[in-house]
């Protein structure tokens, strides 16, 4: 099918109901169970459907959501959370303490293999005292435990028990307590949501539609043609077009998001630090970034405006001579144009998620840079299921191209601690583990800041990843949508206050 025809089809559902907000995702989430969240598209949709005990107010300070109040015990080792009594699930069932206990237990359950384990690992037990009171017990004294109770709650009555499975039918029939309820997954991969009539807060938007628009080149045009009201991320090349259109407004928002090429340290050759150093020295990162958009290069696992970013750590530079020396030190031999090990040319496999923005431009460019220098790179684009299987579960790759997006806490423990659940590259450095522990336990912000900057420097030396860049993030919204305040991570947290004109 030709592109113009595709575009025409995308325009078909032109007639929007008043009060309907349609937004685009590159790929619609196939799974809407917050116990297994992994992508930003899922996080955004979850924000419409589900709620946590606590959430952010517009000043990004903690405020109760499903909780009504809480009492921290004097020893700070437990707290009692009193729940709201006016909350119902989208199927009409009442929300109770059992749901909270079930959610926490499921996330902690090793057999359930929740991606959210790290967010509840500090809780040792959850107990329902009555229908609307929960007692939480902690591993260590906590100063402000409500700050950690943002994870989404799922309904116990829709699961048959533990362990939970990623394949549970709940994934496509999610029921939450949030301001919108899911009405259906549509054949065109769009997802429809309607206002949850029993929700305690009125919303200015009756319906929300998540439209999958895989070709990002069309997303901006769909906003201009009024087939969408919102883009969560605008391609840099579309910014000029949208900036000059009076029906649309751009909203810059801060995301702690950075791109990287991960080295699989479980692979013998790549475990050699000289080899990693050599590969990194072959890459001209500026040349990779140029076609992707505006942004800033990063030298480590934070964005440059982060309190934890260490500005003394230099950016990697393409340096063919340094790469050659490092390859030789790493035991490789150059035969003709190719670098070899035991007489065989080095061939590396790079995996990338197929929906990663500009993934083809970046990988082709990277492939070309390495090929020119004598390293063959085989690229595999994976769909979501294959990505989870290959990267998240089996760690089956040589190199991976991806990005991480963090909320404002920029907590990289899961990515870089040797026990981290998202440490897909298999990075282990006892010193870094200690620094991560020290940062977590620090009572003084100056100490935490300095500790994580020190850790940044150590990780940059180890190079478990080639850190690439952070991109400027823009949302675009039709001027028909008013009162827009965007949450920098979850995007839709304040959408109930948005107004459709």
């Amino acid at each position: 099918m030709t592109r113009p025809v595709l575009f025409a089809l995308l325009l078909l559902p032109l007639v929007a109901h008043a009060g309907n907000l349609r937004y685009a995702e590159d790929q619609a989430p196939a799974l809407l169970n917050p116990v297994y969240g992994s992508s930003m598209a899922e996080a955004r949709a979850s924000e419409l459907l589900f709620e946590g005990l606590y959430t952010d107010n517009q000043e990004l300070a903690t405020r109760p959501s499903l909780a009504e109040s809480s009492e921290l015990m004097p020893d700070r080792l437990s707290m009692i959370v009193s729940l709201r009594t006016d909350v119902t699930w989208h199927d009409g069932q009442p929300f109770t303490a059992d749901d909270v206990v079930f959610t926490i237990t499921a996330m902690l359950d090793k057999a359930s293999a929740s991606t959210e384990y790290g967010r509840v690992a500090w809780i040792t037990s959850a107990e329902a005292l009555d229908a609307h009171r929960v007692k939480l017990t902690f591993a260590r004294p906590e100063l402000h435990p409500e700050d950690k109770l943002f994870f989404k709650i799922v309904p116990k009555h829709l699961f048959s028990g533990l362990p939970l499975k990623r394949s549970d039918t709940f994934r496509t029939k999610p029921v939450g307590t949030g301001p919108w309820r899911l009405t259906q997954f549509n054949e065109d991969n769009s997802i429809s949501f309607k206002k949850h009539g029993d929700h305690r807060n009125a919303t200015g938007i009756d319906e929300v539609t998540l439209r999958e628009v895989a070709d990002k080149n069309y997303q901006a045009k769909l906003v201009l043609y009024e087939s969408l009201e919102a883009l969560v991320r605008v391609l840099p090349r579309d910014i000029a077009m949208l900036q000059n259109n009076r029906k649309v407004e751009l909203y810059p928002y801060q995301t702690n998001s950075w791109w990287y090429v991960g080295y699989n340290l479980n692979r013998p050759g790549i475990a050699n630090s000289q080899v990693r150093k050599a590969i990194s020295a072959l890459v001209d990162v500026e040349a990779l970034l140029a076609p992707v958009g505006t942004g800033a290069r990063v030298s480590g696992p934070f964005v440059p405006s982060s309190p934890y970013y260490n500005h003394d750590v230099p950016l990697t530079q393409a340096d063919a001579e340094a790469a050659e020396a490092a390859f030789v030190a790493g035991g490789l031999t150059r035969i003709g144009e190719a670098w070899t090990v035991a007489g065989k040319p080095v061939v590396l496999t790079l995996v990338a998620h197929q929906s990663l923005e500009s993934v083809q431009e970046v990988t082709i460019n990277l492939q070309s840079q390495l090929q020119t220098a004598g390293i063959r790179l085989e690229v595999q684009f994976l769909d979501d299921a294959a990505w989870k299987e290959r990267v998240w579960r089996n760690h089956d790759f040589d190199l991976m191209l991806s990005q991480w997006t963090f909320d404002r806490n920029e907590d990289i423990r899961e990515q870089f601690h040797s026990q981290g659940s998202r440490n897909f590259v298999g990075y282990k450095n006892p010193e870094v583990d200690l620094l991560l522990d020290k940062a977590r336990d620090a009572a003084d912000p100056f100490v935490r800041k300095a500790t994580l900057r020190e850790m940044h420097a150590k990780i940059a030396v180890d190079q478990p990843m080639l850190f690439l860049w952070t991109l400027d993030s823009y949302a675009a919204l039709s001027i028909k949508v008013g009162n827009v305040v965007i949450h920098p991570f979850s995007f839709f947290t304040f959408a109930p206050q948005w107004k459709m004109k």
Partner: protein
Amino acid sequence: MGGASRWAARLACMHVVSALVSCTGDSPEPPAGKTAIDRSWMAEIVKNPEAFTTRVQGSREGWIALHANDWRGAVAAGGDPAARAHAELERFHRVLAALDAEAWRRLGTTWQDRSTLPADSLLAWFVGAALLDSGRDTEAAAWPSGAPLDPAIAARKALHDKIRAGTLGLASLPAAEPLRRESVEGGVRELPDPWRLRTHARVDAAATTPPLDATLFSGEIGVTLTLPAPATDGVEDGEACRVAVRALDVDLDVWRLTASAAANDDGRALLEDLQLTEGTRARLLVDRAVAALDTGRPHCALALGQLALDHEAPRVIGPINSPTLFAVVASAHLHVGRPREALDALDVLAADWPETAGVDETLNTLVVLQGMDRRGDSRE
């Protein structure tokens, strides 16, 4: 070639010299029925490009720098634009100084709210000093004050006093932060100089003389941007500010089309090369954003700042994005409770404005403090 470069080339090539009219306020009375924009310096440039060329020829480098929001460059070039550049610098540093004081206040109160403000630290004294220096005496009274206990701090304060009095130059102020280091278990607390930015603002203010060309490349084009009244109940209507800008944009779009159609080739070229409407719009919005901040309307200031930004080059200072724009956005973000976003705006200033290092660190510490008990989330 960028707009500024093209303009520079054009200035070098244009030879037509005619009487001064446009930029000094002595232009002929406009015909009845003209809009405010039609009577502005911006319109005069498009209508009388030769006069404009003549006007700026005497201080060409300075005007080019001022147009690009390179204020230090304009000061260095001297001539008429230098006074305007000093005024811009004064406002920029004033906004930053206010931001710095607010960052100190929030750091102190947030820490105090956690009941862990370290008793052995001079941090509380620094909070008081920053607030006192910015004229927030009532709030400063809640914090320790008096003569600095530490001789090094007392010496720094005396140095600031001398610079502000004109006895010493700004160059005598050590550039490096921090002013004070305190040992703490597991690390060091580093407290930046709480007076630095206000001293910069004072020095800039002293150098500001009545500008000869009061409005050229300013946001003053006679347009009144009607913004909602200052919030009295703490609830602000940021959306109303966006609506006001949309109305302004309609006027500017109409003016641009009609002015372009009426202009000769040189006038049209200047309209495009100088990015006249875009740059003027941005300056006007920044002016109003500063006013909104000064009158307690940070949501409005934030909306105006975001709408002023050149999104095609969001991290580049140039004819559209001025340093004050980023200072305003940072300050507005802090006032609406988003210090992490304020850091993003300040990051743009870090390389060229080293005096922002202190306020950047204070905000860094505040952000870390606010997240001390949080458990982060991350997604691919």
